């Protein structure tokens, strides 16, 4: 089965045992994203330690419904991004997006992506790329809002 390139062991593990799942307080911003083709949804919160690129991502919490790919992807995101600076986290996000949209022709950088390299096979299934990206897009959006909200709040 070609399918094993899609459903890597790591993905199935994260799917069955998601990390960081559940919505938590405190949070700087919360967003709700939907995949209009399949109806999958995610609610995602971020808590940052400040407003600049050097600020820490203190927590990412999430809930929602979705397929194994989207669920595992949120779990990996949690593992990877919490504890990084905002700048680093967005850089990893960007690398992940490039991998996903690369149609299987982009070589993943394991140093940057760690467990997320397991998603390399998803890039060959265009219909699933959106599943893998759902939480990452939500993270980017929430982070922008959190930074904006806090910056806006500074006198």
């Amino acid at each position: 089965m070609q399918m094993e390139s899609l459903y890597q062991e790591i993905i199935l593990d994260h799917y069955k045992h998601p990390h960081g799942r559940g919505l938590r307080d405190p949070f700087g911003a919360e967003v709700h994203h939907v995949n209009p083709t399949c109806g999958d949804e995610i609610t995602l919160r971020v808590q940052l330690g400040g407003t600049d690129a050097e600020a820490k991502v203190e927590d990412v919490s999430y809930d929602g419904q979705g397929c194994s790919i989207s669920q595992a992807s949120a779990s990996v995101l949690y593992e990877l991004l919490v504890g990084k600076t905002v700048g680093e986290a967005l850089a990893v996000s960007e690398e992940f997006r490039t991998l996903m949209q690369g149609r299987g022709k982009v070589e993943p950088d394991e140093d940057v992506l760690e467990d997320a390299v397991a998603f390399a096979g998803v890039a060959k299934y265009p219909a699933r790329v959106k599943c893998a990206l759902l939480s990452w897009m939500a993270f980017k959006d929430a982070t922008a809002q959190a930074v904006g909200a806090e910056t806006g709040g500074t006198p």
Partner: protein
Amino acid sequence: MTATAARPSALDVEAIRADFPILSRTVRDGRKLVYLDSGATSQKPRQVLDAEREFYEQHNAAVHRGAHQLAEEATDLYEGARATVAAFIGAQFDEIVFTKNATEGINLVAYSLGNAATAGPEAARFAVGPGDEIVVTEMEHHANLLPWQQLCQRTGATLRWFGLTDDGRLDLSDVDSVITGRAKVVALTHQSNALGTINPLEVISARAHAVGALVVLDACQSVPHMPVDVMSTGADFVAFSGHKMLGPTGVGVLWGRRELLAAMPPFLTGGSMIEVVRMEGSTFAPPPMRFEAGVPNIAQAVGLGAAVDYLDAVGMEKVHAHERALTAYALDGLATVDGLRIIGPPTNEARGGAVSFTVDGIHPHDVGQVLDDLGVAVRVGHHCAWPVMRRYAVPATTRATFYLYNSTDDIDALVAGVEQAKRFFS
């Protein structure tokens, strides 16, 4: 599974399959293609492709416009397709409007009604405004829901709807309070693409007509699969798509009662739908031309005519019987899968060959992926009927749909594939 179920009908499926080139291709790792997604779009027989190609290679010209021989031939072929489609659904020739898909057909009706308020006295009876009601159902495809939501938004009318019962039927317990004297339009589907349900039209159209409302029927999933005589549906308008009935993409049909089409204002405007044009204002041709602005989808209409000829030659009664047998066989087969829940009528009563289901603990997307890997093409998601998913509290379903070229082998592959998905994700 009984012996009769295994040989579902008098259709010679092998001979039919030989007409569909795509059915002999393989997918993924050289798997035989098992196409169970005809509810989204059907495959096309050689005869349809040949008709389109012959049109382009021998007769291509703009219709209704030229005085030269090609234009005459193209016009004859295009209008011939109209006659073929009309006969197929028991309609008059000039009641058939070619659209690009069923979605456009339904939008046409909604926009024409919306335009009626400013289109002069003859059209005033069609006008929709505040206080008026548009009635739909909770099982509508987005194509028969959003145009009405939008019409309400534009005009101030109110949208109302029939809810659904737990087993996938319209809740008709209180028809008279859903369709009130304020109803201007009742729009519903003949057969649900998400649930498979076939709706009882008589009770609804009787009530609709009693209060003077127009009935708009979405026949996307009925005309391709069973004999439909528009006059006996009780509907005033019927819309369907060519691509779901062996025809090309890019063509649909709107049927409307002659006296209604003749009085309604136009929707799309431009060339070929006019009577007299002045800078100061214009008048319009009678239907069907009034509703076909611009150079139409000529080759596609011709292709659809060939598709109708193909279905006619097979016989719609036989197509229907074949699909009923396949559906029974599928319901039986899927019932053997532990943790599988049918979303929609669980029995073969008043239902067509769209079988939606969920599998405990596995997301439909993942079920679909495993099936795809095995060569079985199904659809996953909300099937453009998102409110149905909400109603049954599922994120999405996996849906298998059948057509004349499917056999019980295809359904065996489906059932085996679902079992495999369960093993994979257990």
